[in-house]
């Protein structure tokens, strides 16, 4: 029984450390996410050895089921841009800091081994009470002693969900409000930033085909919805005549082209 436990711990520790090293060492983030998954499985094994059965389940459901999947979603969403090359500019201070930290952590580990009390190193641990770490015992404590932090955690998760949606959505015009955005930079995302994907779509929309109707619609799309003359003149030409607006649309398409290169 003892040797089985030692073997199980060795397997879990191997999974944990190997996954952690793969997480921080691999160049592609998708492999990092897989390393994180392996680490989580190893920690789950450790929780089982320590008698925390409910936590092992929660670890699997929340981490492996939600967090890692969220990471993989973002990696897929970013596509090839998720792989970032190594950066030479600030490499030396970073590696010096990491080395100092790593050596300090190793020293702390050795010191802890030297100074560890009998309680930590003894192999005769306290016998666990019945149902320790099970769903009933932990749940009873969670809903009596720790009920206020538990409810606050619910509020925190709600705030986090709303905040994540607000941040990830970006500042784009709300299509449900007809004439809300006054700021022309908010009204036209192609003017607001120089994102390559947006530039690509700008070229697709505003292709100077020479056809007056499509050019007029492009100019209308670029026009701020408020009729304020000064801001309209700075942002885009108001559609006073077809040739001017067609020329401005062609200019916008040409200006957007150099952003296509990278």
């Amino acid at each position, binding site marked *: 029984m003892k040797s089985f436990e030692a073997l199980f711990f060795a397997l879990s520790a191997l999974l944990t450390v190997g996954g952690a090293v793969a997480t921080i060492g691999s160049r592609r983030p998708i492999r990092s996410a897989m390393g994180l998954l392996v680490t989580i499985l190893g920690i789950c094994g450790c*929780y089982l050895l320590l008698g925390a059965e409910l936590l092992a389940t929660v670890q699997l459901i929340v981490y492996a089921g939600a967090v890692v999947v969220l990471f993989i979603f973002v990696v897929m969403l970013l596509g090839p841009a998720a792989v970032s090359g190594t950066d030479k500019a600030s490499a030396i201070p970073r590696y010096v800091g990491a080395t100092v930290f*790593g050596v300090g952590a190793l020293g702390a580990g050795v010191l802890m081994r030297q100074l560890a009390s009998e309680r930590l190193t003894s192999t005769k641990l306290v016998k666990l009470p019945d149902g320790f770490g099970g769903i009933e015992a932990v749940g009873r404590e969670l809903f009596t002693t720790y009920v206020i932090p538990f409810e606050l955690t619910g509020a925190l998760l709600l705030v986090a969900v709303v905040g994540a949606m607000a941040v990830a959505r970006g500042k784009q015009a709300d299509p449900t409000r007809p004439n809300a955005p006054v700021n022309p930079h908010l009204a036209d995302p192609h003017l607001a930033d120089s994102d390559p994907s947006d530039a690509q779509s700008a070229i697709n929309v505003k292709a100077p085909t020479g056809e007056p109707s499509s050019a007029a619609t492009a100019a209308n799309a670029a026009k701020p919805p408020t009729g304020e003359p000064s801001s309209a003149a700075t942002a885009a030409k108001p559609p006073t005549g077809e040739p001017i607006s067609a020329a401005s649309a062609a200019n916008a398409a040409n200006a957007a082209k150099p952003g296509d290169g990278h």
Partner: protein
Amino acid sequence: MTQLPLHYFLALAALLFATGAVGFLIRRNLLVMLMSIELMLNGVNLTLVAFNRIRPANHAGHIFTFFIIAIAAAEAAVGLALVLAFFRLRGSVRADEATLLKH
């Protein structure tokens, strides 16, 4: 349950935390930095559960770990949303590109 000495688990947790911290320091990819934070949180969780093993009168370590897991999930959601917003702004996920406050 286990009769393994507790410092095995503590050493493993410390190693996991150190790995996560070193990864946070040497990597410049925002996604990998977030994953390193998750590694560090997991190291702390393992420490809490291990210490709860020698004092099994209550489940304080388990409950703390429970809350930390919830906060880690919230942190991952908000952090990944920030990464997406940053990517929309800069077209990259390198932390070195975040220089808007520098100039």
